[in-house]
């Protein structure tokens, strides 16, 4: 018995290649059944996301991993009508390397955004789909359940998830460090650009509810307000909202400063010391440099946000060694303590064991 992983990810395959080989949720049960029916395959699971497609297989006792990889490659070629060169983007892992790879994937160490947590849920879904299709047995059950333990362990014992890695996420992080709970925060968008829409949506995803949109073209403001569930106001009215709002995201194409200390000062006193967070996403900048010297006003421009996002990525990269130490420890335990308790499966035999709680977990 040996584990095999066969697939591609964002590092080895282009978007065009990734589009060719992807499984929708509806097609998974059939695909899993076909995969398990391949010669030498005892158990199978498919992890298919926008950044990766990986087959996790258990080679039956009398089959070699090379044989299983060949069969899986041939099956993918037939299934997706791939050419031989399409398979060049594929990689394979065997035995302990498969466990190490899956543990790293579930921990977000193999993701495009290092340490991202969405992959954990995607691995869970992939496992659930394989379980429901009856293509997992005691080996894959143990492997996947261990990978969930590893994912949690890595996230709680290292700082791999700490620090924002995108402009939007940095904006949210800063806002949370200023206001705490964003549910009571009101956002004012000056300009209806794409990046300000995305940043506003990031803030909304963390609870910010009230969004006011102001744009020189009022129609565009109305359109964006409708899209993100906000309220549109005319461009000459935004300064009247300054007393109420907490976060201002500015992204106009104006060649001059739109927000100046002259605009802000009258409202600051009426805010009674409540902080005001300004995010300047435009070039040339919308917010005058002297604004950052105002009491209770925090300003971050695109450069600063990008610099912080890069710093966040770097900090996560620095955590990789510690994360892989956790992964390796679990791989070692898995092979020395967990697997020896598991009897090898036979080709053609039902891979499930009714007495093993893990089989039907």
């Amino acid at each position, binding site marked *: 018995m040996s584990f095999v992983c066969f697939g591609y990810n964002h590092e080895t395959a282009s978007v065009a290649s990734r589009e060719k080989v992807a499984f929708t949720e509806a097609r998974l049960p059939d695909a899993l059944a076909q995969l398990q029916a391949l010669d030498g395959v005892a158990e199978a699971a498919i992890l298919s996301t926008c950044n990766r497609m990986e087959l996790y297989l258990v080679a039956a006792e009398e089959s070699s991993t090379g044989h299983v990889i060949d069969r899986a490659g041939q099956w993918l070629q037939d299934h997706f009508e791939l050419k031989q060169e399409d398979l060049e983007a594929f990689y394979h892992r065997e035995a302990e390397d498969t466990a190490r790879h899956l543990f790293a994937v579930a921990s977000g160490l193999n993701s495009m955004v290092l340490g991202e947590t969405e992959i954990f849920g995607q691995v869970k879904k992939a496992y659930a789909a394989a379980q429901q299709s009856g293509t997992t047995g005691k080996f894959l059950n143990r492997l996947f359940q261990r990978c969930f333990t590893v994912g949690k362990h890595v996230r709680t014992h290292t700082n791999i998830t700490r620090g924002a890695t995108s402009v939007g996420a940095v904006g949210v992080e800063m806002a*949370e460090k200023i206001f*705490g709970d964003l549910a009571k925060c009101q956002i004012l968008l000056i300009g209806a650009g794409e990046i300000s829409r995305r940043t506003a949506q990031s803030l909304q995803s963390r609870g910010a509810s009230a969004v006011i949109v102001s744009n020189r073209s009022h129609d565009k403001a109305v359109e964006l307000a409708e899209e993100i569930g906000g309220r549109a106001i005319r461009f000459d009215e935004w300064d009247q909202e300054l007393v109420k709002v907490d976060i201002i995201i500015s992204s106009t194409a104006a060649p001059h400063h739109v927000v100046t200390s002259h605009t802000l000062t009258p409202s600051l006193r009426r805010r009674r010391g409540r*902080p005001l967070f300004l995010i300047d996403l435009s070039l040339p900048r919308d917010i005058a440099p002297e604004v950052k010297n105002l009491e209770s006003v*925090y300003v971050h421009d695109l450069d600063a946000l990008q610099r912080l996002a890069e*710093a966040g990525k770097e900090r996560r990269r620095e955590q990789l060694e510690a994360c892989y130490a956790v992964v390796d420890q679990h791989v070692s335990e898995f092979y020395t303590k967990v697997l020896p308790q598991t009897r090898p499966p036979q080709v053609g035999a039902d891979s499930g064991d009714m007495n093993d709680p893990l089989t039907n977990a």
Partner: protein
Amino acid sequence: MEFGLLIASTITFVLACVTSWKALRKQRRASAWFRIGFMAVGFALQCAFLYLRGQTLGKCPLTSGFEILIFVSWSIALIYFLVGGGFRLSLLGFFTAPLIVIFQGVALLLFHPANVPSVDAGLGHADYWVEFHAALALISYGAFALAFVAGVMFLIQDRNLRAGRTGMFFHQLPPIHYLIQAIGRLLWLGFLLLTVGILTAFKMERFPESYKLIAISVVWLAYGVVIAVRVVRSLGGRRLATLAVGAFVFPILSCLFL
């Protein structure tokens, strides 16, 4: 025995400082419980010390500079546990523990065996209004100390946010909006406690010495001005935090006269 309890308490607070510093360097939150645990033990030891000292004296142990400093340390820990927890401010304990260590450390330096009261010396008539007055005044110092701590935390985080620094403290310090609220409430709490403390002086059988009353009134006035300025001029967070930090010099100096 009493002295041993005090040493043990100080060591426990030092351990709270060390564990939280280590946790901060590793950016881990798990050790927060160790810190709280150490601080709780340190506080319990403080209570035991003050109880035994009070038993010896037959009254509230506020008869010397040494005891006053210990009582202020105890007040800081008391306010930290009673009020600080409600603010849910991470790292409040991290900054509070060293302050307690400093107060207790100075107290230990002031300690002299000759100052240990004999049972006979303590058995005098106790005016409960005197004890109430002194205890309230010094507990208010605990609230001012916590406002000082929250002020320092605000200034660090304010600097981080303005400079876009996401270093060691950034992720673990609480949001500045919460810190502003905490500073405001702690200042009010301290001010109200001190006001009641001063008013109780009028109930005492013997009015306190004028220099003591002046010292404590200066503290009351200083914080009264800070609160008034905040209310009237709608102070922003940075100015409020700076005032909360700066004003703490008054309670510290007043200890020289109590």
